[in-house]
């Protein structure tokens, strides 16, 4: 049974459609991420699951039960807020105990469960402190414990790592993912950081303009984006227009402004299609070097990133391509103006919706 179902959910604010019709199922024990640029409706979607926003139309089900119009305090949903929203006038112990008190859980059981929750996030020694007396990372963990202790049907997190520094963020990612697996909890996570989404999720829903543009595993989303928006949002990409020359099975020969391509995808002869090529899948060699034997061009620009180098290659036949190579790659001694040859392995160019 799925933990959360959204069915044709719409939220309108006056004439703004914050969410324009979202269908989403979160399976029990699944980690689903809502990913998208600012203003695409992620928070609104999450708040409709939590009950802080009532949908204009559509249905929200939690654990199979229709909750569309149910007040937040009557849903059994755990939420971690961006700035943690800890209660500053209560100790960590009381913060975590709050949800259990509201549920009338007897004192002894309450103490036991609060103890367990604090232990889970390694904060047992801090139970009597106040939120103002602990670090940001610790506050983050209290917020998590507070949401988990009520054994929610689903845990919702809205950009929970936004306020942490990079080092702490990486650590929290691992911790959260482990905790989620260990407890087998269903989880909806909101972020605009694609790395965060790729590294944690079972499935990612990429949103834009109040709609889910693609939903799938991190591999699906990254390797086989369904459209230009997803391709561009998920990282560097080369997007070209190509004309189909011939088709055989699921592969096709095509021409992109003079550059021959073997596509993964099909179409009628003469069709114009949009093609995406991931820059790190393109082979690059010095012009004339043994084994190069590709399309000639020269380096128009390059950017050094430490672990990798990004090249802008102007092909002699016209198009420009972005190519990413590891820093350790022998060709990484290239300089602007150097002649190069580019090879695109068959099947790597990928037809997407425009």
């Amino acid at each position: 049974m799925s933990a959360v179902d959204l069915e044709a959910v719409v939220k309108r604010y006056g004439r703004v459609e914050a969410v324009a019709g979202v269908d989403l199922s979160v399976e029990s024990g699944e980690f689903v991420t809502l990913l998208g640029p600012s203003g695409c409706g992620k928070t609104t979607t999450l708040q409709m699951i939590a009950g802080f926003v009532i949908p204009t139309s559509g249905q929200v089900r939690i654990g199979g039960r229709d909750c569309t119009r149910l007040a937040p305090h009557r849903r059994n949903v755990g939420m971690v807020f961006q700035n943690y929203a800890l209660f500053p006038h209560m100790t960590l112990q009381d913060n975590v105990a709050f949800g259990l008190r509201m549920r009338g859980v007897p004192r002894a059981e309450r103490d036991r469960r609060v103890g367990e929750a604090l232990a889970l996030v390694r904060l047992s020694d801090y139970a009597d402190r106040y939120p103002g007396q602990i670090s940001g990372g610790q506050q983050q963990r209290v917020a998590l414990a507070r949401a988990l202790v009520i054994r929610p049907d689903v845990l919702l997190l809205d950009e929970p790592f936004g306020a942490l520094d990079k080092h702490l963020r990486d650590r929290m990612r691992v911790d959260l993912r482990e905790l989620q697996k260990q407890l087998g909890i269903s989880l909806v996570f909101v972020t605009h950081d694609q790395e965060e989404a790729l590294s944690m999720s079972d499935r990612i829903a990429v949103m834009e303009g109040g709609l889910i543009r693609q939903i799938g595993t991190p591999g699906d989303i990254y390797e086989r984006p369904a459209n230009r928006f997803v391709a561009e949002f998920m990282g560097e990409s080369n997007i070209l227009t190509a004309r189909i020359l011939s088709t055989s099975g699921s592969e096709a020969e095509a021409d992109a402004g003079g550059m021959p391509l073997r596509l993964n995808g099909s179409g009628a002869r003469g069709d114009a299609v949009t093609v995406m090529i991931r820059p790190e899948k393109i082979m690059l060699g010095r012009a004339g070097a043994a084994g190069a034997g590709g399309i000639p061009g020269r380096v128009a620009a390059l950017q050094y990133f430490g672990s990798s180098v990004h090249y802008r290659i102007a092909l002699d036949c016209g198009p420009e391509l972005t190519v990413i190579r590891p820093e350790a790659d022998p060709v990484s001694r290239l300089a602007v103006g150097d002649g190069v040859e580019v090879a695109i392995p068959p099947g790597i160019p990928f037809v997407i919706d425009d």
Partner: protein
Amino acid sequence: MTANPKGGRYRAWGLIVPTGVLYAVTFGIPMAMLLSASFARFEAGRTTPGFFLDNYTRIASDGVTLQVFWNTVTLSAQITAVGLVVAFPVAMLMRRAGPGMRLALMFVLVSPLLTSIIVRNVAWMLILGRSGLINTWLMDWGLISSPLALMYNRLGVIIAVVHVYLPFAVLPIYAALRAIDPARENAAASLGAPPWRVFVHITLPLAMPGVVAAFTLLFILSMGVYLTPVILGGNFVVTLPMMITDVARNQYNWPFASAMSVLLLASIVVVVALASALNRAFSPPRND
């Protein structure tokens, strides 16, 4: 901060000197004179300077002054309580209202501040008096046969003083409410708290600094009211400021008026101290 040498920064305090001189003449020296006068002796219209406790023993023993002081304290407590109870929902409304409504409320709150207190008192006389608006209407409708005593008693004074000082109560509470991150209240709701429990456990405790500020302002201002009890209380509600005025202006008994002023000031100091203790109790510990 700035590259100014330290001496340069202290030199800026020179700008405060004119106000300092003003305060010294109108406030510092007079208060010192007041304090010393409170220990003088007043007999048969003659004042003997010195260190006598006559005035203070009189306060403690004449049976009237302490009674009036106590009346002033209880009246102030009533005004403060009514003021807070009225102000809190208004502040809540201002927080939840949209920008237009909020501006309108702000206007309604601030505009009476720009009207003379005595004028507002006059307005209440016209409403609460024996032949005022309320009594006339109630009698016309046959609901009562003789006028209700709405004025020349505490009720009238409380109504009129709350009318004058309500903005001073609403604005600090509103400021405190506005500082509360709504996510905290949402968090409580998501943890299962129904609206009234969110209010009791989260909103109210977090708004306490504003409530304490409003309490302090209302109480201190109420302790000093003179005009409103004179006009709307007649001679039936006597406050310490009224008694001070009478003793000073009509009996020329400076020493005793001074001693009562010291008592009034001391009670204000107590309220301020109480407020800062409350504030400390309500502010959660933090170290950053």
